[in-house]
């Protein structure tokens, strides 16, 4: 059971959060300029690395804030991501 470091509330049990996917999956600023291939990649594909991934997490039961962490998908080691570098 992961312990997620919420920037506001401090470390809390994973059950208080929702994992909201890879942070580098940004919505294109102009979707209509995207090719079909690129749009399908945004909609459906994931990097899904075996190792460190930068993710969005949502503290849904706490301060309801969305924040990023770097998580190793093998060891589950977590390092917070500084607010400014989002």
């Amino acid at each position: 059971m992961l312990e997620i470091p919420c920037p506001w509330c401090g470390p809390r049990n994973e059950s208080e959060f929702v994992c909201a996917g890879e942070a580098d999956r940004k919505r294109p600023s102009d979707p209509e300029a995207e090719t079909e291939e690129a749009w399908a990649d945004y909609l459906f594909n994931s990097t899904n690395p075996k190792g460190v991934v930068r993710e969005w997490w949502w503290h849904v039961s706490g301060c309801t804030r969305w924040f990023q962490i770097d998580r190793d998908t093998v060891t589950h080691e977590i390092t917070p991501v500084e607010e400014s570098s989002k």
Partner: protein
Amino acid sequence: MKRFSIFSLARNALTGHRHWEKMWRSPDPKREYDVVIIGGGGHGLGAAYFLAKEHGITNVAVLEKGWLGGGNTGRNTMTVRSNFLREDSVPFHEMSLDLYHQLSRDLNYNLMVSQRGMITFIQSSAANRVALQMANTMHIYGAEYRMLTLDEVKQKIPIFDPSPDMRLPVRGGVYQPRASMVRHDAVAWGFARAADARGVDIIQNCEVTGIQQENGAVTGVETTRGLIKARKIGMAVAGHGSVVASMVGQRLPITTQPLQAWVSEPVKPVLNEIVVIRSYYGTYLMQSDKGEIVVGQGCDPYPSYAQRGTFPIIEDATTSMLEVFPSFGRLKLLRHWAGMLDIPYDGSPIISKTNTRGFYIDVAGSGGFKTTPAAAKTFAHLIAKDTPHPLAEKLGLERFSSGRLIQEGGVSANR
């Protein structure tokens, strides 16, 4: 390959079982093969078997980074079913069920396929609607899936003992008589023995670290046991699909998430059918031939390659189980583990060519064990003929760029 039977057992008993031959060889990898399959699980070994048996291609190597059958083939809950929503899913999964029922004879290896039947409890009108939609689609494709009244459910499952103040009272069920349980390890070992006997090289402890290409076509794989050349490479590495596909720069619509399963201590037979309690937390359970109650649940809520799961999943599933089988309260959890599933965006298998010529992928989907023989057969067909098998036409990557998904749940719910 000497045939197994009661007579071979008796014959060898006389000489203290000292003369059994190897199930499969452990050859050193040749420098080149016609086809290299990455992944020595049920899908990979099965594809090699069908390449040899149905397409006469025997200069094949199956490369397994650990021990064969050690991935998801050795970690699932042995359930084989074909109850799906979409017309593009049902026939494919029906073929898998048919193949499973003849595989013990074809491979001359007892996979212990027991046709227990599967009952899904219906605990709300929404669940009733989904069951009816599934039943009607399956009915069209000759797969029996019928509704059960509450009395019929009680009559089939004597230990079903719902408490009066149940949060979601069970009103009945939906029943697939042909759903079965299969001894998972035996699927890998059976395919391995039969493929090896037809000349396929199964190479364990051989991890693929890179894939070589020349102008858009694969030429070979770099492995921990040297370079192996091949014009055709098939990937069947459930849980590591993204990792291997990235070696040719191919991104995939999958996330790797743990799927946990656990067993109780073995007890005398109390449960025959496979039971699904969908409405609480999507829990399913059955009793293995050895007497253990085997329980499984939906995936853990975040991607992971750690091959272990988080404990609340077991707590949620246990509360659901105890709602319908309160007598299991004193039964004990013996062991729990996790497999790593490549969960496709729409929850359906992906058996497909890719942007790189000669590189084919079989991503088992959110429950690869039930599709093992059908995926192996159609994957072999795709590799051999470079065109999809009729029943796997819609399972290619194109469905994602065209948006014509085969929506069977998957991650589409939370995107």
